[in-house]
C-alpha cells in the first residue's frame, strides 16, 4: 500500500489533491490510491442500488407492465398509424425511452434522499473528489438504464420484435448517448429538490418529456408538436430507436440538441452541487 508512506510524511497534503485528475485520465494506469477510491466508491454505490429492492423492482417493473399493457393488444399491428413500423417495436422503443429517462432522473431522487439525511455533507468532508462523486452517480444511473433496456428488449423479443444484431447495437449506443443530458438533469434536480418534492417533479417531468418526445404516439411530421419535439432530448431519445429501425436518418441536428442540453444540464448540476453544502 502506498498509503503507508503518506501517513509518515509530516505534510502529506501535497500528494493527494492532484490525484483527482490522475484518476480521471488513468483508469487503466494502475492502482493509485485515488483511482482505487473512486472505483471503490462507485462499487459501493452500485451495490446499494442493487440491494434496494423496492427501488429496483419499481424502476424496472413500471416500464415493463406499461409495455405489455400497450403493446400486447397490438402485437399483430405491423403498420402503426401508417408509419410502416411494427407496433410492439414502436412501443418497445418508446418504453425504453420512458424507462431510461425515469431511471436517470430517479438517481436524482436517491441523491435527494442522501442529502436529506446529511450524508452528502459527510461525503464533502472526505477527500472524495467532485468528479469521482458525480461519476459514481452517473454510472449508477446508467446501470439502471441498461438493465431497463435489456429487460424491455427481452420483452419486445417475447412479443415478436426481431432485429439484426447490428441494429440492436446501433439503437442501444444511440440511446445511451441520448441519455447523457438526463444523467446531468438527475444530478441537478437531486441537489436542488427535497425528497418530498422530487417525486412529483420527476414523475411529471418524465411524463411531459415522454409525451412531447413521442413516446406514447408518433409525433406528426409537421406542426407545433413536431417543432417542439425537435428541440427536446426526449424526442431524440425516441428517435434513437427509430433511426436504427430504418426510420429517419440521424441528423446533425440531433447531436446539437443532445450536446446543448447536456451542456445546460451539466452547468445546472455543477451549480446545484456547489451550492448545496448547507444543512438540508
Amino acid at each position, binding site marked *: 500500500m502506498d498509503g503507508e508512506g503518506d501517513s509518515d510524511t509530516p*505534510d502529506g497534503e501535497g500528494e493527494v489533491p492532484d490525484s483527482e485528475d490522475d484518476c480521471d485520465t488513468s483508469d487503466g494506469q494502475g492502482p493509485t490510491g485515488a483511482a482505487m477510491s473512486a472505483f471503490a466508491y462507485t462499487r*459501493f454505490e452500485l451495490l446499494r442500488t442493487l440491494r434496494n429492492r423496492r427501488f429496483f423492482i419499481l424502476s424496472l417493473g413500471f416500464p415493463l407492465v406499461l409495455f405489455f399493457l400497450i403493446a400486447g393488444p397490438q402485437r399483430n399491428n405491423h403498420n402503426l398509424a401508417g408509419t410502416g413500423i411494427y407496433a410492439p417495436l414502436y412501443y418497445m422503443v418508446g418504453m425504453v425511452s420512458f424507462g431510461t429517462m425515469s431511471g436517470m432522473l430517479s438517481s436524482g431522487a436517491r441523491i435527494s434522499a442522501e442529502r436529506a439525511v446529511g450524508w452528502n455533507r459527510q461525503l464533502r468532508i472526505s477527500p472524495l473528489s467532485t468528479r469521482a462523486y458525480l461519476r459514481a452517480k452517473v454510472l449508477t444511473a446508467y446501470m439502471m438504464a441498461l438493465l431497463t433496456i435489456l429487460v424491455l428488449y427481452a420483452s419486445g423479443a417475447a412479443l415478436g420484435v426481431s432485429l439484426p444484431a447490428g441494429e440492436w447495437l446501433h439503437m442501444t449506443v444511440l440511446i445511451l448517448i441520448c441519455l447523457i443530458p438526463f444523467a446531468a438533469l438527475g444530478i441537478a434536480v437531486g441537489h436542488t429538490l427535497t425528497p418530498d418534492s422530487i417525486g412529483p417533479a420527476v414523475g411529471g417531468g418524465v411524463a411531459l418529456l415522454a409525451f412531447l418526445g413521442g413516446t406514447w404516439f408518433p409525433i406528426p411530421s409537421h406542426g407545433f408538436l413536431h417543432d417542439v419535439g425537435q428541440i427536446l432530448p426526449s424526442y431524440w431519445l425516441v428517435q434513437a430507436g427509430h433511426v436504427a429501425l430504418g426510420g429517419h436518418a440521424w441528423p446533425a441536428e440531433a447531436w446539437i440538441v443532445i450536446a446543448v442540453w447536456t451542456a445546460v444540464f451539466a452547468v445546472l448540476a455543477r451549480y446545484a452541487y456547489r451550492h448545496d453544502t448547507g444543512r438540508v
Partner: protein
Amino acid sequence: MSATAIEVSQLRKSYGPVQAVRGIDVAIDAGETVALLGPNGAGKSTTIDMILGLAEPDGGTVSVFGGTPSAAVDSGAVGAMLQTGALIRDLTVGELVAMVASLYPAPLAVAEALELTGLSEIAAQRTQKLSGGQTQRVRFAVALVSDARLLVLDEPTVAMDVEGRRSFWTTMRELAARGKTILFATHYLEEADAYADRAVLMAHGRVVADGPPTEIRAMVGTRTIRATLPGADLDALAGLPGVSGVERRGEAVVLSCADSDAAIRALLVAYPDARDLEIAAAGLEEAFLQLTADAPPDAAPGTEPAAAAAFGGGGR
C-alpha cells in the same frame, strides 16, 4: 509538534438577519484536544461548518494546517462527525465504514475502526436496522476510520446513552494519545472539563472565554446561593467575597459564586435576616447567561465581556 492545526481569525457568518458568528479568533495547536463549549445557538456548528469548508465565511479567515479548509479536506487530513446526520441505507455497517475508508489516503483498518467503536459484533447488520445509539457509533467510526490528523466532532455524544458515552470518551482519549488534534463541540461543561486540554466558550456568536476547562469552570461559578432578602443592595452583595455575580428574582437574590463557602459566611454576617437559603451547583445554561449578561447580542465587536479579556490569549 507545535504546528498550528486550526487558525480562525475575525471569522464572521450570518444567515439572513441572524449573525451566527460575530468575529471570533481561535488558534488550535496540533495535538491539542479542544472543547468548543456553548449553549444551543452560540454559533458552534456554524464555526465548525466553516472550519470544514461546508460554509463560506462572510468575513475573516480560516486556515487548517496552513491551507484552506477544502485543501485540508481533500488531502484527507480531516475526519469529522457532524451534528446531524443519519446513514445511507442498503450497506452493512462494515461496508459503510469500508466505503468511507476507501476515500482516504491512509485510513485505519476497517476492523480496527469497528473494534474501537464497539461495532465489531454488528458489522454485518444493515445500516437501516440500527438503533439510535448504534447509528451514532457508526457515525463515530466513519469519522475515525479516516485516521486523519484532525478530528472534528460536533456534539458527538448527544444521542448516546451513558455506556455509549463512556466508551466514546475512552476511545477519544486513546486517539488524543496518538497525537490527533481533536476539536469537539459540546454543551456539557463536564465533558469539556473531563476530556479537553482547553475549552473555548462561545455565546451569541462570540468567544467569551478561552482557557483550561478548570479556569472556565471557576469562572462560570461552581455554585449559586439563593436567598430571600427583600430590599438588598445588589452592588453591596456583588462585593462580598467569593461572589462573582448577582441577580434579583423578586424577593430573592441569586449569587453566582466562585467560592460559595466564603460567600455564604460573608452573606450571613452582612445580612443576618437572609432566609430560605439554597446552595446549588450552577447549571451551565445559567453560567453562560451570567458570563454573557454584559454582552448584549447586538453589541459591536470590541465591546467584549470582561471574561474574554481575562482569558484573552489563553492557551495560544
